[in-house]
């Protein structure tokens, strides 16, 4: 049981590292989509004790949103704005990986501080979730393009999803769907904003979005 799930966790970690090291936006989006798929698999693997319908609805909507709709939205955004690469991120790719390792260590440490709710859960679950969240945050902080930031937000959401799906068993479907819906609308509106940004500024560099300051 543990070993199977741990493979998924390892894959998620690898996906995170890939996100940190790739400059191609297209690749990044695809990696995020794959991560979404991994989440669906993870759901399937952990939610064995719940009604099948509930789990399948959740899995289905996860796949649809995280692996199909969001990536498509973002792919369109980079196509429209002709932004293929993250040219000059604030933090270079090599450093990003180093930061990634540090963040991984931090996650492991934090994970050790919090007792696991029950022994059946893999001890990797918590660190992986935290790692994914932090990588998402790091992507937002270190990348220049608006698309990367949305991507970072998605990765962060993925991390929270990992957390939720592994640690919290009894949360109701209603809430989970609400969460998904909100994320969906959020990303959708962000997409609209990206569209407006690229039209208004002819680029997607957020560092030029800094006229409002003191």
């Amino acid at each position: 049981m543990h070993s199977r799930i741990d493979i998924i966790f390892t894959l998620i970690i690898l996906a995170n590292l890939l996100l940190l090291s790739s400059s191609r936006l297209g690749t990044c989006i695809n990696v995020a989509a794959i991560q979404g798929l991994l989440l669906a698999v993870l759901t399937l693997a952990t939610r064995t004790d719940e009604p099948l319908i509930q789990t399948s609805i959740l899995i289905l909507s996860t796949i649809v949103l995280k692996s199909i709709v969001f990536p498509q939205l973002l792919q369109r955004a980079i196509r429209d704005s002709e932004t293929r690469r993250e040219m000059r991120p604030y933090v270079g790719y090599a450093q990003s990986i180093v930061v990634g390792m540090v963040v991984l260590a931090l996650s492991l440490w934090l994970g050790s501080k919090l007792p696991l709710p029950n022994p059946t859960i893999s001890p990797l679950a918590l660190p992986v979730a935290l790692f994914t969240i932090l990588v998402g945050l790091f992507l937002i902080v270190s990348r220049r393009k608006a698309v990367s930031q949305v991507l970072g937000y998605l990765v962060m959401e993925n991390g929270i999803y990992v957390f939720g799906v592994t640690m919290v068993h009894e949360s109701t479907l209603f809430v989970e769907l609400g969460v998904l819906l909100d994320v969906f609308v959020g990303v959708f509106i962000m997409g609209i904003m990206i569209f407006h940004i690229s039209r208004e500024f002819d680029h997607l560099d957020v560092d030029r979005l800094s006229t409002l300051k003191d």
Partner: protein
Amino acid sequence: MILVLLLMPILAGMVAFFIKSDKIRRGLLLTTAFLHLGLTTTFWSHRPGPLFDNWLSLDAPGLLFLSITSFLFGVAAVYGVGYLIREESTPGAHSDEGSFFPNTAESVFTGCLLIFLATMTLVPMSQHLGLLWVAIESTTLASAPLIYFHRHHQSLEATWKYLLICSVGIALALLGNFCIAVAASHNADQPTTSLLLSSLVTQAKHLEIPWLKAGFLCLLVGYGTKMGLAPLHTWLPDAHSESPSVVSALLSGALLNCAFLAILRAQQICLAAGLADFGRNLLIGFGLISMVCAAVFILEQADYKRMLAYSSVEHMGILSLGVGLGGGAVFGSMFHAINHSASKAMLFLVAGNLLTVFKSKSVNDVRGALRVVPVSAALWVVGLFAITGFPPFGTFLSEFIILKGALAEGRYGVAVIYLATLAVIFAGMSSIMLKMAQSNTAPVLGSAHGVQRESFWSIAPPAVLGMVVLLLGVHLPTAIDQVLHEAAMTVGGSS
């Protein structure tokens, strides 16, 4: 009843998207706003019962914040109608650059406004942490288009920041919810299955402490971002300064309170779990940092809407400080929520009037307001004294009570920082706002325009808000007093 209150604005919002006639749509806005207000008022005499297994219920803090929201929305709707009429007649000229830009379609604006109301109605009645989260996230989504009403690049930037920062914050709050769920599931004998506030509070003693702490921290940072606690407040000045004034008023007066309520819910659990001091110290810390941070940016601020926004940061700090101090200060904090909402909304509305006339958000461009728009300028000065806690305004009483709480708890250092910051902020705001009102008229405006006519739509709403703060300072009705006390007791206050 609760359901009606919730569904009415949603439906009205949906409908508003499709109404062609401006007049009918505006009528709908007003009607919905006032029906909402009327319905909320009836709750004061007869509190509605819980719904859906206690998921939706109106306790004292909920009623308090719902009423604030509803009242503000009613006033803002009146102002908003006047605003829309004005915007229609003069297409937006960019305040700083003189270029022209389009506005978002009025139907979208009105629709979003109503849905925004619906989401803000949902927040105070949610008794389930997950639902609360959904509601707060929806407020962000519903308000983003409102901020982007004037379609120019600065408002776009503001909206982007608002959206991104608040989304990240809210995501962390979600993590916090999960943490609390984990904390609850630890209880071996009787695992709490839901994130219902009532069951969490009753089971609080069995919650796993580290998870609860982690959850509280995530919620505090997450919702704190939305509430505008420093250093998480960074979106706030941008969004408030770029959105239309009526939206700024709602953001500042109602939305921030919603996030504050969410933090209060978390604090409720902490209190029940015996972590009172843990939560309180954090709230005091954030409160003081927010106040100091606001003071830094209010001094010599060049943009008066940003100044008001920072003042909101300050007051959110005061609210958080009050709750953090516990004891009598919590009552002060609850009271302050009303006072701040009314006076800040008033100021934003008046700022809107000034912006219309002077066509600039820069402090230096607004000169001799008392000569050009006497009524608005007088309200502006009244607002200054209301927001900075002068008697006989209600803010004086609430800030006084919070100070009293700090001293009664023996936290003299906190009291000193609190007073010093208030003094600096007063100095900063008064210097800016009085200069705007009193200085000599700019030659261009003074000679060409003379005294401008001020319409009822733009004067009455802020005046009403000002009157409310004034009346609360002179006479606190028993009904409000009771609800405030009840609310304070719920979140850890005494008597």
